């Protein structure tokens, strides 16, 4: 049983990294949002599996929150926003797909090297989980850096949060306080973002962050 529980946890955490990669090269917003929903779904499964093998029922709550908010509510809401704004067109990137993917691979390798070496004494399950979680966080950061569009930056931010949830559930027995707070903060963050997107649309008729960058307080 020990072997199986480890393998499934490993598979799911690895799956999360894979979906992170898939997010990196989506160049349409709606496809990106679908990928994010998939990301959250894999996270849900992973958290639920952790709840099962750690016999920690409170983690099911975290899994449920991930499922309801991140896999269903948020993608639907963002879909509506981009439909209302009429931006299904291609999203621009600063770095090309190939370079981004190579960078992403480098980041995954980096997180493996760093985490596996540092946590040599920790139990293997937590080790692998942390390494994958760091990879997901770094890939989320990469996405935020390479994207210019406000919606895709938000998606990048949320996949960072997913990575953090993975890390928190992998750390056995971490108090509930933290998981709830993570979910809660994502919610708050989303409200904030919602307000911002609303205002940005109102003021600029675009959600392209590059348009915001025109205003550098000190030019002129």
């Amino acid at each position, binding site marked *: 049983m020990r072997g199986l529980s480890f393998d499934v946890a490993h598979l799911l955490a690895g799956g999360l990294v894979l979906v992170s990669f898939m997010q990196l090269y989506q160049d349409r917003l709606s496809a990106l949002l679908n990928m994010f929903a998939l990301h959250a779904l894999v996270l849900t499964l992973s958290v639920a599996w952790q709840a099962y093998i750690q016999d920690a029922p409170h983690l099911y709550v975290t899994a449920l929150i991930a499922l309801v908010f991140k896999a269903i509510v948020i993608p639907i809401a963002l879909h509506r926003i981009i439909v209302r704004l009429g931006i299904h067109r291609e999203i621009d990137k600063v770095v090309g797909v190939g370079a981004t993917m190579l960078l992403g691979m480098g980041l995954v390798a980096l997180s493996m090297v760093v985490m596996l070496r540092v946590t040599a004494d920790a139990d293997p399950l937590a080790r692998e989980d942390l390494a994958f979680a760091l990879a997901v966080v770094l890939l989320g950061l990469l996405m935020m850096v390479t994207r210019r569009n406000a919606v895709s930056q938000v998606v990048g931010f949320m996949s960072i949060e997913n990575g953090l949830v993975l890390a928190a559930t992998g750390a056995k027995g971490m108090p509930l306080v933290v998981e709830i707070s993570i979910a809660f903060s994502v919610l708050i963050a989303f409200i904030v973002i919602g*307000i911002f997107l609303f205002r940005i649309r109102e003021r600029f008729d675009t959600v392209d962050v590059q348009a915001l960058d025109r205003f550098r307080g000190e030019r002129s």
Partner: protein
Amino acid sequence: MTMPFDPMAAVLVIPAAAAALLAALPGYRMTARLNVLAALLTFLAALSLFFERPEAGPYLLVDDLNNVFIVLTTFVGFTTSVFSASYIDHELEIGRLTPTFLRFYHAMYQVLMFAMNLALIANNIGLMWVAIELATLTTVLMVGIYRTHEALEAAWKYFILGSVGIALALFGTILVYMAARPAIGEGLPAMVWTNLVARAGEFDPALLNLAFVFLLLGYGTKVGLAPLHAWLPDAHAEGPTPISAVLSGLLLNVALYALLRFKMLLAANPYAVAPGPLMVTLGLISLIFASFMLYRRRDIKRMFAYSSIEHMGIITFAFGIGGPLANFAGLLHMTMHSLTKSAIFFAVGHIAQVKGTQKIAEMSGLTVTNPVLGWGLVIGVIAIAGLPPLGIFMSEFLLVSSTFAREPWLAILLVFGILVGFGALFLRLNSIAFGEPRGPSAEAKASYLPMYSHLAIVFVAGIYMPPAIVMWFQNVAKLLG
């Protein structure tokens, strides 16, 4: 409750209750007063912590270190609320803010006070993280409150960089828990700071090191350390000035305080890497970078924002050097900087209102047109530049001399950075305060009390520090290791 009055709960409950009340009440004159009253009550509750210290629980803790910061935070929170009352009067008159937004503004102000107090008083590293995230989100909303292009850009940038920082900090927090779990056991106790620091010697040093790197980058973003500072000048320049004062004077301190707590963990573990060199490097980079950037500023609030980066660099450097003397200097500098910088922003807020602009080129001769404001700014800049006899001179002098004794090369860099910044500040001050009078010069409807009371404290601290306070700081400096 068995106790009739619990000051530890009071510093949290008063702002939280006030936030709810202020969100519900219309009428800005009354709510502005209520805001001041709530801030005053919080400050008094914080003061009472000196005399009656409650037991530490799994969530809350008051010790010598955070007591100072709680009192400082609530004091500056109170004076800023007084300044804010006269500031927003003017903003309403010229129509930059509407009464609806004002209600939101006041409620958010109290939420921010609540979040900062919670971050300081938390004994739980998870709770501390939540509080700092709450403070970040609140300030993001406040920075964007004018809803101009620039304000939205500033708020967006702040939001993105702030959340990346906060994400890295959470990862670091999780790693600390992972390091603590084998020694302390699963669950809540392994996130309680007092347990952590008591058992830190048994933690896995490699994991602890890695955790500190993430925490340094994460909370360092919130402190505004150099490669991660990009949000800071925009957020300061585009938000309402009371928020700039609170950001510079308090929120940066709170983030640095969080970092100090973790530094103490590493110091308690003999096998962990010394966090000093990392902090010294980041501090020096911030100091020198910000000093040079000061020369190119054309916007007055932006200039003082860079000056905040510079001073945060100095403080981080001081704690990185470590030892009783440098820590003492760092603590003193934190206190003096937050008092001085908020006083400067009080002055700048009214100046920008009088002149109708934040551009340095369009304001000059302030000591002639608005002597009270102008001279207030002059004193503030003299203080922030580190000239004797004001408080910042004391702390910088202590820091430089203790660094010279231990790492002369670093001291040379430190002095270089301070001097470069010094030159820039006086270059600008000269034209703002003494040049040909320019721009409108209407009398400011300002309350000068907050500004001058801060400057008076800084002045007195530069000349005479009561032995009790010196003792207190020395104790805390020893705690920091």
